[in-house]
């Protein structure tokens, strides 16, 4: 049994209150995670002004070098993990064992996070639109003859993290390179990646006081959001709704990402099947950038049948199978609940799970205490059907036939839209839309990211504000 401590101002703290993590296959306890209280969190947050000063004192060039060094450590070194030590492979194994995400996904996503850290200058160039980063050393400077001055909006970035996919950690990790300390509440089943990242940063000589790993309960999470002037909050709408109006909290809820097939392409949907499969099912369909709906100008049924046939081939495979394509649910009841919800909504006339029919087996697949959800392709006869705009933690997509000219009025807020069209007028309408965070025009998968362009919020503008500045000699 591994005992994962919390990290308070970078120092390991073993609490008397712990949660136990079990292996999703065997149910055997594999780790205990030290929990901290809300008042401990607030006490540590009160130290963040000092931590930020310590971090800010490191010149940008040096800081970037240390973060890049941390990337190497994260991907290669054996690091302390509570009372034991952990190689990268051990880490992947543990991550997979408690989350149910296959090792092959875990490895791919961890590599993504490592890439972001290892290419931090490129990432920051994307976030700051190419600003000379040394401006952050002094707080002001000149670039292209213009004065630039920025001040931090917070002494620490709070992050309430999910357990569904380790890829999300690439979103908060740049904060350290932006000289802002971290106050992290890991997802219940996924303490592994944030803990390893912070340990790697510590080993790379990032000041320990800036590295806070604080596993806690819901009330503790609320304390982090209350105590930090800027935070990232991951979760479903029940978790995130109370913070909708709080500008200090950047919400990462459901993505409702979509693929749109225009009037000029919908008849040739077969050409894009690979792209559609990838958009729906990559990473086990668990990311907010996975497509959860496809709007097509025509041929909806044919498209649903074709995509359903492709996705029906996906099988439940064990966590250590390199061919695994869907994640297991660490808590099998969750799979039953999700599937039950879909079946309940299918009772509303006008929708059919085409993929389930083609597969000929139920959506929920169980072996031992493990459960998987196999893909669903739900053909809806209208955008109003309750299953038309839903997102679940598995490869789920609704197919809706909708005239191109009505699409933008129907799709609702979407994190990623891949619009497969060559129609300049439709393209312009999409460019003008306020509903889309990341827009791909042409045959581009929704899951394809470009690291130099933030796709969901901009961490730099969350953590810094620009101000007018002038100085004169005495």
């Amino acid at each position, binding site marked *: 049994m591994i005992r994962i401590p919390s990290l308070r101002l970078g120092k390991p703290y073993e609490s*008397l*209150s712990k949660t136990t993590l079990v292996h999703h296959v065997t149910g055997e306890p594999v780790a205990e995670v030290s*929990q901290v*209280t*809300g*008042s401990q969190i*607030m*006490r540590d947050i*009160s130290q963040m002004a000092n931590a930020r000063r310590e971090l800010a004192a490191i010149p940008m060039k040096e800081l970037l070098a240390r973060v890049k060094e941390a990337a190497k450590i994260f991907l290669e070194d054996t690091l302390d993990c509570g009372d034991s030590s952990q190689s990268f492979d051990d880490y992947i194994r543990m991550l997979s064992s408690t989350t149910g995400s296959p090792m092959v996904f875990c490895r791919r996503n961890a590599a993504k996070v490592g890439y972001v850290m290892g290419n931090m200058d490129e990432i920051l160039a994307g976030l700051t639109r190419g600003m000379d980063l040394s401006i952050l050393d002094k707080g002001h400077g000149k670039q292209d003859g213009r004065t630039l001055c920025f001040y931090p909006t917070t002494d620490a970035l709070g992050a309430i993290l999910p357990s569904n996919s380790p890829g999300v950690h690439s979103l908060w990790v740049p904060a350290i390179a932006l000289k802002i300390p971290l106050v992290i509440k890991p997802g219940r089943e996924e303490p592994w990646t944030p803990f390893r990242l912070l340990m790697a940063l510590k080993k790379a000589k990032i000041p320990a006081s800036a590295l806070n790993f604080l596993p806690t309960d819901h009330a503790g999470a*609320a304390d982090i959001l209350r105590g930090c002037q800027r935070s990232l909050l991951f979760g479903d709408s029940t978790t995130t709704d109370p913070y909708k109006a709080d500008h200090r909290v950047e919400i990462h809820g459901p993505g409702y990402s979509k693929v749109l097939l225009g009037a000029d392409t919908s008849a040739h949907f077969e050409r894009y099947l690979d792209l559609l499969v990838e958009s729906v099912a990559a990473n086990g369909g668990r990311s907010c950038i996975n497509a959860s709906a496809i709007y097509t100008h025509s041929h909806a049924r044919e498209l649903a049948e074709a995509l359903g046939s492709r996705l029906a081939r996906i099988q439940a495979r064990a966590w250590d199978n390199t061919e695994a394509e869907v994640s297991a649910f660490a808590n099998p009841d969750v799979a039953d609940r999700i599937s039950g919800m879909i079946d309940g909504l299918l009772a509303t006339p006008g929708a059919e799970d085409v993929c389930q029919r083609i597969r000929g087996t139920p959506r929920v697949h169980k072996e031992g205490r493990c459960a998987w959800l196999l893909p669903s392709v739900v053909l809806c006869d209208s955008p109003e059907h309750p299953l038309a705009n839903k997102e679940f933690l598995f490869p789920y997509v609704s197919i809706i036939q909708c005239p191109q000219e009505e699409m933008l009025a129907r799709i609702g807020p979407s994190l990623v839209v891949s619009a497969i069209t060559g129609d300049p007028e439709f393209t312009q309408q999409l460019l003008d839309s306020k509903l889309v965070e990341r827009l791909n025009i042409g045959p581009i998968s929704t899951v394809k990211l470009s690291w130099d362009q933030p796709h969901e919020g901009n961490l730099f503008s969350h953590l810094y504000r620009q101000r007018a500045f002038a100085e004169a000699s005495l």
Partner: protein
Amino acid sequence: MSKYERNIGFNDYFSPAQWFDPKVTLESKVKLAKEQLDQHVRETVAWHFSPDTGTPFWLEKAKSYKFNPTKDVQSLEDLHLFGTFEDEWLRGGPVERWVPRGLEGNPVYVFETGGTTGLPKSRIVLDDYRIDYEMMSETLPDQHFPKGSNWLMLGPSGPRRLRLAIEHLAQHRGGMCFSIDLDPRWVVKLIKMRQIEMANLYKEHAIDQALAILAGGHDIKCMFTTPKLLAALDEALRSGKLEDKFRSFGRKVPVGGLRSIKAAGITGIFSGGTEFTPQFTREAYEEMLDSGEVYMTPTYGNTLMGLACSRPIGPHDGFKITYYAPQPRAATEVVEPKDYSKKVEYGQTGRVLLTTLTREFFVPRFPERDEGERELPYERYPWDGVSGVRTFSELAATTIVGVY
């Protein structure tokens, strides 16, 4: 007024010298305590079911019994004849039915418990709260709770026993008690409405009142508070709010500042609530109370029972909190949740079953809303204890903890 004039009970339990006698073995203390408890059960039942002194509620109930309480109930175990006490009986009037005939004509307090929705539960009290807290006072170390020093009651106000009890404790020890306005029912309502920000503002309002008292020059050394309010006070002190208060009153901030509970002059804290986990206790000890320099004693109590004291807490036993009921005036048992007649084994988890046995109030076998582990008797309290008290898991999802 002497203890006997106040009808404290059937014996004087204030100085259980035998508990401190090193020559008496634990085994014989346990035996003695059980004999004393059973005798107390007989006397209490005789009092509450006698036509002369009895309680109208119980006399009425007795008409439906197929047993004779005064003859058939000879020990704690025999109380099962009464079934379990239903706290619903305490909702609504006439509250006079709870006043024993033997105590008629004396001034009676009525205290409430719960009350966020519907009718609150009421309990009548004459002197019990004073007796309970005087007994508890004997367990407080004078070094940390100096006689004659003033107290701050940083807890709920209103129709609650606790507010008066703490004031009495302060007076009993020769001091005075300052208190704040705090309505926990409003806090629970705010949380139910998901008005978390408003609930936090209300907490700040409570703390602000406490800071004003601490800044008022009243030489306050002792305090009652709940875990949440203790943490909130600590947070306020650390951020310099007491120093700000001093300045706003035109008072000079002492050298060394006022940024901790110790620096604010507090030497002893008497605290209560099921939120007292070992981890919180450790945090308080290590991070709020200067590694135990400020003494804190957790207690477990409620309006029905009085209060149970804990064994001294600290790093020596992993900050485990074990409570012992004030036997024989009250007894707790840790029982199987599905069969209250069976005690769980020592160290095993069960539901807390509470029995109150005073001349003022008889509560046989009330299933508390808490669970915990059954603990062995020990020298100071030679009867069963309960540790790890927390909200009963079957009820936890529906219970809102406001400021307690």
